[in-house]
Every structure is written in C-alpha cells, then in structure tokens.
C-alpha cells in the first residue's frame, strides 16, 4: 500500500493527545513509519508531562512568617474599624520590608516571642495531611472562645454506636468530615473500619488517599476514592451524588461495583429486587421478535466484555439479548459511549424514536461526556425528537451549539427553521 506522505500538523498532535482525534488506519501506518511524526508526538507528550508534573512543590510554613503576616494582615482586616490611620506602613512597604534588613529583625523578634508561646502551648503539634497544623490550644483561649463564640456547629467524632444526628452537625472521623444535611441515623461500625448510615442525608469530605467506607443498610458500601459527595438514604431509595473526586458503590446484592466520578449521581431502589430498572421497556413488538430469535442459537465469548458479547448476540440475530448486553456495558462497562451508540442504532433500525429519546435522557451523562460518537448520537437524538413530533429540541440545539461546523448542521438548521 502506498504510504501517505502528509505529516501530522501540531494541531492534529494536540487533538490526538487530548483524545479528540481518532487516527485513521492510514494515519497510524504513517506514524509507524515516519520518524518525524512519531518524534513530534513523543516531544509533545514529554512537554505536557513536564508541565503537569514539575510544579508540585511541598512547602512547610515558617511560624515566624505566619505570625508576622498575621500581624500585618490583621491590621488591614480591621483597617476601617480601628482608627489606625496614623500607621503609615502600607501593604507594599510591609511586603518589601519583610525581605529587607530593616524590618526583618523587628518582625523576627515579635515572631520569636509568639512562636515561643505556641511551642509552650503544645510542642507536639501534629501536621495533618492537608497541610494544616493542629496545635493544642491553651486553656485560657478555650475559655475566651466559649464566651465569645456561640455558634452551635461543632465538630464531634462520629458516634461509636449509631444514633440519630440532627441537621447541620459536623462529624469528624480521622481526617474526614461528615456534615448532616438532614436528621441522619449514623455511627461507626463495630470493627471501626467503616461508617454505618441508615436514613438521612450527609455530605462527606474525605482527604484523598484515605481508606474511607460508608455502609448503607448493610447492603451498599460506598468506597471513597476521592474527596466530596452527598449520600441520601430513605426507606425506599438511596442516592449518591459526587461533587468532587471519585467514589465506588458496591452492591452486596450482586457484588456489582459502580464507579461514579465528579458531577455524577446515581439512585438505587432499596428493595429485595435488584437496583432500579432502567428505562428500556420491553414492548409487545419485541417479544414477538424475540420468539423468532429464540429459534436460533446464541454464540457469545464467555470472558469478553458486554459490548463484544452484545455484538456477538446481534450477529446471532438475538436482538433482545444484544440490547440487554449493551445496557450492561452502559451500566458497568468501560465503553459506555459505544454501548449507547449500539443501543440507539438498534432503536433507530426499529424506528423507535421515543425509545431513543428516553435512552438519551436516561444516559445523558454518557452522551455529554462522549467523544467518538457524540456528533452521531446528537444527530440521531435530534431526528428522533423530530420524528416523534416532540416539542423538545434539546438534542438539535445541543448539536448546533457543540458542532458549529458539523456535517449535518445545515440540514438540522433547516429542520428547525421549518418547524418555526
């Protein structure tokens, strides 16, 4: 095969590195044989890696500086409350002054006195992982604090035996923090390895790297791999909403593991049956088709992914099984977007426009985070809305917004204009 001589442009390399460009077979061949292009890709990755990894410097605070900084900034904090206008040391002078030899001895002396007081209060200060210093406070400070501050929100440890905690209580366990957003039944497990929760709503903030688990009604275990999320548990359902980071929900019913990343949420039905049913309705028409399909044999590779098995089922003419397998891939697999594409294709072939709309609404997060098939999926969604005579044109407008140079843009614009 004749090799294509066109070298990759830097724009293509950037897009490829971001995962926005899928290399066509001839491009892959070209890169394999072209030292210039492979060198450019390696260089770009190298540069990006250098930018990302080489600016993380751990820095430990200098007590003297903190005290001096506190003195100076505290005056600014109360600049218009206290009448200290006679003091002619503006911010810039202070900042320069810190490094200059005139102010330095004075500030250092002040800081040394304050530092001595802090060391006296607690020599064994512990540095928590988020970089804050937990210094034991002097008794006099505690008294003064109690008098001057009366807010009810106090951090306490998670109770050893589960109990109902009121709304807006902050509970501490290790480095992590749990805030109750509604009255919640919560406590530590007997082995002290996880937090037990029944009904209620909590917001959890966990330091990255902590092994932190929350057990919901002896069935679900939420393994925390990241930083912040909300759990809402009632007698019928249980939902997880991830604000930041990554969590895993383990369902002991079938040992399924569902990873949820930032801004994702999932609701489970708490019932003897399995998790909530997904909106893949099995209509009468499909049942009839399944009857015909059952006459053929289904060949699937046992250890293959749901997606591969689904495709194999489709090849065997088992559309119903294929649909189920694709849905499984959508739920638990890695290639969610591809699975969404396959399911929508089956529905499109059936002419089930309402099912396509229903599917895209249910897996909107997969659709929106998609890269490879997003354009096709939006087009399919747009046509489905048009054919189903739906008043909603979300997918059409999303397509126009996100793919201003999309190949179906004009057609969809016309479609929308005609309807107007």
């Amino acid at each position, binding site marked *: 095969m004749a090799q294509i001589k066109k070298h990759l442009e*830097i*724009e293509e390399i*950037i897009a490829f590195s971001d995962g926005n460009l899928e290399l066509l077979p001839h491009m892959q061949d070209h890169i394999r044989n072209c030292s210039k292009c492979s060198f*450019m890709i390696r*260089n*770009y990755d*190298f*540069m*990006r890696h*250098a*930018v*990302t990894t*080489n*600016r*993380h*410097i*751990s*820095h*430990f*605070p200098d007590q003297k*500086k*903190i*005290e001096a*900084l*506190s*003195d*100076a*900034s*505290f005056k*600014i*904090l*109360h*600049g218009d*409350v*206290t009448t200290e206008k006679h003091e002619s040391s503006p*911010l810039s002078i*202070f*900042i320069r002054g810190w*490094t200059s030899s005139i102010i330095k001895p004075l500030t250092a002396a002040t800081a040394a006195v304050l530092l001595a007081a802090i060391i006296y209060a607690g020599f064994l200060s512990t540095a928590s992982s*988020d*970089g*804050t*210093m*937990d*210094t*034991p*406070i002097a008794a006099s*400070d*505690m*008294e*003064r*604090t*109690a008098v*001057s*501050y009366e*807010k009810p*929100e*106090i*951090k306490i440890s998670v109770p050893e035996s589960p109990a109902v905690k009121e709304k807006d209580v*902050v509970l501490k366990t290790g480095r992590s923090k749990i805030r109750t957003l509604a009255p919640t039944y919560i406590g530590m497990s007997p082995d002290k390895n996880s937090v037990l929760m029944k009904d209620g709503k909590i917001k959890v903030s966990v330091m990255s790297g902590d092994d932190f688990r929350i057990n919901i009604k002896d069935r679900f275990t939420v393994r925390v791999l990241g930083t912040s999320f909300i759990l809402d548990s009632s007698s019928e359902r249980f939902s997880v909403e991830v604000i930041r980071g990554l969590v895993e929900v383990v369902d002991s019913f079938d040992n399924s593991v569902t990873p949820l990343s930032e801004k994702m949420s999932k609701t489970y039905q708490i019932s003897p049956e399995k998790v909530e049913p997904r909106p893949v309705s099995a209509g009468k028409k499909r049942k009839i088709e399944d009857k015909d399909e059952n006459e053929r044999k289904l060949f699937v590779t046992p250890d293959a992914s749901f997606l591969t098995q689904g495709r194999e089922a489709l090849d065997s003419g088992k559309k119903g099984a294929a649909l189920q397998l694709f849905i499984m891939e959508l739920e638990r697999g890695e290639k969610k977007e591809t699975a969404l594409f396959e399911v929508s294709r089956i529905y499109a072939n059936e002419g089930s426009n309402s099912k396509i709309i229903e599917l895209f609404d249910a897996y909107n997060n997969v659709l929106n985070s998609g890269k490879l098939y997003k354009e096709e999926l939006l087009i399919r969604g747009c046509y489905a809305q048009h054919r189903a005579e739906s008043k909603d044109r979300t997918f059409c407008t999303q397509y126009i917004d996100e793919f201003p140079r999309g190949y179906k843009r004009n057609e969809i614009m016309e479609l929308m204009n005609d309807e107007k």
Partner: protein
Amino acid sequence: MEKHIPGLCEMEDIELLDLAIDHKDQKAWTELIKRYYTKVSATVYRIFGYDSEAEDIVQEVFMELAKCAGNFRRDSQFSTFLYRVSVNTAFRYIKRKTSKDIVCDSVELLVDSLALEKNGDCILEAGERAAMVNSVLKTLSPDKRMAIVLFEVENLTLKEISDLLKAPLQTVWSRIYNARKEMYDKIFGNMKKQR
C-alpha cells in the same frame, strides 16, 4: 455532663473568620493563616513557579484576603473563596510583572537540557525540570500562562477557568491551545534549528 468547649484548631474556617472579624480575635486569624499557608503557597508555586517572588505573592494573597474577607458571601467554602483570591492575586502579579522583553536565553538552556535528557546522556533533577518548565512558561503572555497552568497543573475545568479569569469559554480554550502550541514551538522548534 461537662460541656465540650471547642479550641481554635477544632473550629470550622467560617467560625474562625467570624471570630477574627466580629470579635477582633487575632489568634483566630493567625490560626486561619496557619491552616491555609501551605495550601496557598502550593497554589501560588504551581501557578507562578518556585521563585523568590512567589513568597511575596503568598503574602500578598493574605493581605488581599484581609481586604476582602468582609465580602465573603458564605455561599461557598472558605477554601474555595481563598483559592479564588490566590489565583486572582497571582494573575494580577503576573500581569503586573511580566514584561515583553523577557529574553529566551532560558529557553535555549532548556532545549539543551531536553536534548541531553532525551538522548539519555543525563537525567534531570526534579528541581531542574521545574526551573526549565518555568522558563518557558514565563515567556508566555500572562493570559496564556494562567490558562495553561490552571488547566494542566491545577486541573480545573474550562468552565472553572472561564469563571475565574472572567473570560468566555472559547477564549479560554484558544488560550490553552495557543499556549501549548507556542511552548511546543519554542522548545522543539529551537531544538530542530540547533540540529
């Protein structure tokens, strides 16, 4: 039963801030600074690079915080508010200090180092790498530099960067894109010439 009286180190950030502002409690203010000094330094160093000037920016962040603490609306975490103050202060500082006359001597040095490392003749120390990356980043315009650092190093989303820098999403994306391209050209374009 004896009532538990919380110490300063057990208090929430907002409680400390209230104490510092409403009750003029300097110890609460010091505790707050102590709590966040490391985080602010880390943010500033990541954005600005480890430099003697970075120390000044860290101090400026807390001065700025003192000025605008009264404007904190409590609709977000204090740490988020402080992060915004840190980024904005660093951005202002970069805008103020970045001159167009920055000579690219450091880039040439970087190219040499990269060439050595790529050939396996020498493995660069982490500090050297950091200095190297800073050198090239400093040659970018403040807008591009902030955008690429917030995106690549701080791992913020385009939307978050757009909110922080008060620039449209598309503009932020093109700044990141152009910054990457410019950095690539500066590093590897020079390398090619040298060959």
